[in-house]
């Protein structure tokens, strides 16, 4: 669709006069050019303006159109690729490095505010080299993370996945021990050293359930469960990488909601307490609960009116414990990521026809067969 046609359709759908068009069009064009057109599920002829016009045209009630449009203008949160890359780029220097500095300061008995002295210490170099970074999904962007931190972190500290082969474990440990001796030839036990910190990286968490959750049958599932099982299983090769009692595990999320942090804090405490594993959840950009769309919100009539259970729910969405009227697990997010829309966002953003099409079409992880 040509952009001008989309604009005309939008003006007609919204019943705008020239004054409204003059006020809204520059903003919409700027928003589209600045961010929204880069959404990876758009395609030529169907960019933001076209999608917005068609999406609003699906809403039958003029009041719904107005409310939905205001939502897009004022409340929608779109993380562009550049913004996510920025979060990745500051994750180590602004978040993890500070923790390593603090740990090194404790180790050598220095005032943790003497940052220059601590950073120049051998202890810091040892702690920094003994830190292992593992991606929990391709959203972890370990390639970009590695390039951003080339000066501080070696390639043998960053892995795309938490599922590590035995061969790889051997190589990681060999290289770690060689490097530690280079840093400090007198380092005790360098020949048997293990990683002292493991940082699990991921891009986005809304509910936290994909990391760890209880099944209906009482079992536990999730990525962190799998990782934990490996490091606690002495038969596993991965267990050789760390000493669970002396290793600090950091779950580093580039973007996460308060809901996810709260859920994960509670469930990980319960999960790891018996094994005495020390952990911390670090969020680079926290989404506060204030952004959530919850029952009673002005958008609720729209969520009620166009909800299509058949088109939107399946066996995967049911794991969230409720329907997806407010998004998966009732997260009620107004969030779109440049590569996809999380299903934790309110469903009109990623809906499926016939009742309502998506403003930002979503690619599902679970393919329907």
């Amino acid at each position, binding site marked *: 669709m040509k952009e001008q046609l989309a604009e*005309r359709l939008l003006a007609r759908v919204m019943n705008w006069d020239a004054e409204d068009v003059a006020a809204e069009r520059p903003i919409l064009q700027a928003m589209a050019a600045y961010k929204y057109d880069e959404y990876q599920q758009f395609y030529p002829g169907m960019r933001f303006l076209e999608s917005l016009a068609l999406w609003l045209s699906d809403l039958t009630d003029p009041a719904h159109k107005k409310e939905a449009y205001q939502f897009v203008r004022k409340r929608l949160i779109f993380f562009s690729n550049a913004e996510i890359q920025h979060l990745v780029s500051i994750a180590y220097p602004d978040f993890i490095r500070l923790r390593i500095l603090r740990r090194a300061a404790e180790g050598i008995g220095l005032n943790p505010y003497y940052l220059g002295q601590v950073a120049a210490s051998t202890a810091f170099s040892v702690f920094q080299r003994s830190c292992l970074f593992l991606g929990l999904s391709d959203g972890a962007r370990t390639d970009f993370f590695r390039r951003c931190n080339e000066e501080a972190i070696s390639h043998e500290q960053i892995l795309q996945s938490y599922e590590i082969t035995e061969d790889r474990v051997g190589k990681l440990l060999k290289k770690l021990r060689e490097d530690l001796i280079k840093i400090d030839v007198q380092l005790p036990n360098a020949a048997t050293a293990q990683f002292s910190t493991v940082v699990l990286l991921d891009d986005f968490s809304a509910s936290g359930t994909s990391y760890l959750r209880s099944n209906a049958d009482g079992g536990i599932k999730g990525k962190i469960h799998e990782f934990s099982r490996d490091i606690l299983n002495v038969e596993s090769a991965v267990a050789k990488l760390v000493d669970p009692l002396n290793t600090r595990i950091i779950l580093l999320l580039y973007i996460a909601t308060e809901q996810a942090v709260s859920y994960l804090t509670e469930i990980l405490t319960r999960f790891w307490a018996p094994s005495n594993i020390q952990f911390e959840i670090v969020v680079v950009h926290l989404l506060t609960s204030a952004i959530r769309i919850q029952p009673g919100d002005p958008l609720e009539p729209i969520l009620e009116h166009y909800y299509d259970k058949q088109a939107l729910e399946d066996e995967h969405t049911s794991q969230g414990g409720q329907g997806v009227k407010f998004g998966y697990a009732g997260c009620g997010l107004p969030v779109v990521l440049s590569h996809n829309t999380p299903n934790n966002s309110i469903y009109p953003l990623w809906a499926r026809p016939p009742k309502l099409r998506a403003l930002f079409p979503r690619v599902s992880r679970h393919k329907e067969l």
Partner: protein
Amino acid sequence: MKELRNPFLLRASEHIEADATFVRLFGPGALELLKSDQPFATRIFLSAAGGGKTSLLRLFTPGPLLELHKHRDVDDYRELYEKMQGLGAVDENGPRLLAVLLSCDRGYVSLADVGLDHAKQTRLLFALLDARLLLAALRQVCALKRLKSDDQLRRLEFKRLPTSTELPGLTLPCTGDVLQAWAKQREEEICAALDSFNPEETNANGSDGLLALDLLKPGSFLLDGQPVAEHVIIMFDDVQKLTSLQRDRLIRFVLDKRSTTPVWIAERLEALNRDELLDLGSIEGRDYERVFLENYWRGYARRFENVVINIADRRARDSRSVEISHFQACLEDSLDGTEWEEKFKLAISTISTRVRAKALGTSLFDKWVAERDSLQGTARERAIAWRTLEVLIERELRRKQATLGFALETETLAEKSDASIKAAAELFIANEFGFPYYFGASTLAKLSSFNIQQFLALGGQQFEEVISTVVINPLEPPMLTAIRQEAILVKASRAMWEEIPRRAAEGSRVKMLLESIGAFSKWYTERPTAPNDPGVNAIAISMADRDRLRDPSWLPLHPEHRLLAEVLASALAHNLLDAQPNYKCKGQLWLVLNLNRLLCVRYHLPLGYGLFKEQRLDELVRWMEKGFDSKRQAEDELI
């Protein structure tokens, strides 16, 4: 690249990256500013932000000159080319001028922050300016002669002229690459001194003055043995970014030097101190030309209107959203259409009833009323005629001198119904019956208060709505109604008022004083007899009072006047007030202080010039502190 929707939004010259776009959008009429026997004489260009200084300077630099020469046969460029040819900047063979443009927005202020004494600071400033001017000259020569890489600088020879002074560490003549290396090193030495912990002990040598004025001459640069340009000019832009000491030393040196290399200095009004601001416009008799842009255009209002409408046409043509060749044609400029007829007839009915009531009991106005009853013309014209009559009857009724009771003649009515009173009547009708008053391209030009950026901002808002009408209905001709034009202007005026406290020093007081001037003007304009027709939109203080505001012996004794002077200077610096000094009226000389025309919209004031009422300093102080009180004013007048 996204298509350009609204080219009016490309405001500042700095934001139009491509020289071709810049030249295409440049309004040739702006060159009127240079009308003189010596277009390239030393000048100081002054204006508020957006007056068009940077655009003017940029036009003479190599990129735009080359573009202009390349497109000299294209319609859109021809007029500008011919004007530039007339000035001697370009001819059939290409650019003839080497303009060395240097922005002062490059950290010169930090020279003042490192604790050096004034003398040393000034010497380093001159040395740094020299180094950067020479580097800029090399860049401009390369651009002018299309030298693509630094390797080609060897083809350039920098000659030693009889006027040349010695540059420390450089022997002339030299090649371009040697000059570049020397200038870079000099710049680095001075910057290193600034970065050092002890700049007092720096080895960087300063300079007694701008050596570049002696070095940059038409024959200084030779490319393959040939001079690169017939004229050389040095341009300093954004001089307001310097400290007042730096600015003072630079300007004084340039003016004292009287170099044969002309220098253009462009600075915003905010660079001027309080006394200079209060002296704006009194510039006759200087041995250099100081061009205060807004002031200049006020003297040639019609020309300014043509200039900005030409700029608007160029911008409108550049839009990819809509095909418009004349912006003016998109703005409704008359209320004579049938859609207004009924409303005007209603106005005629109301006004004529009032007139008859006023004329009741006297035969004095019988012929005048009969004349209006028989008047032909559009409903709008008749409504204005009736409202004019009402004002004239009010004036007659309030005359202290008794009449003989004979009916006044229709010839007298015709004589008294001049353009000014008709303009007042039109304003009264608009205010009373809700007709739009601020519409049409000519009004838009007036509302810009002779500031091009202000014009583009207002025009941009109107153009946005014009192109929006095309989005909604592509088959309709793009046209903005008078009502919508006025609504947009009212909104823009409100925004300007709201911005005052954030924009100007002493912002709250400035706003209070301006609001008082506006409220007073409205109060005075709306009097039934329409004195000073068509109304008032300015105040004036006597030049004697103006001198008091600049008098160092007066101000300490009158701190309230010092504050008033500060507030007036702040308003002048931001183009919220526009000063006309030495205005002759009633046998006295006055400093007229005009409200920025966009500010007038809020108070429904007329937009002409010379519409002022005299005020005393103490009254202005009261307005500044407490606001204008119409009751008090009325009582004062009774007394």
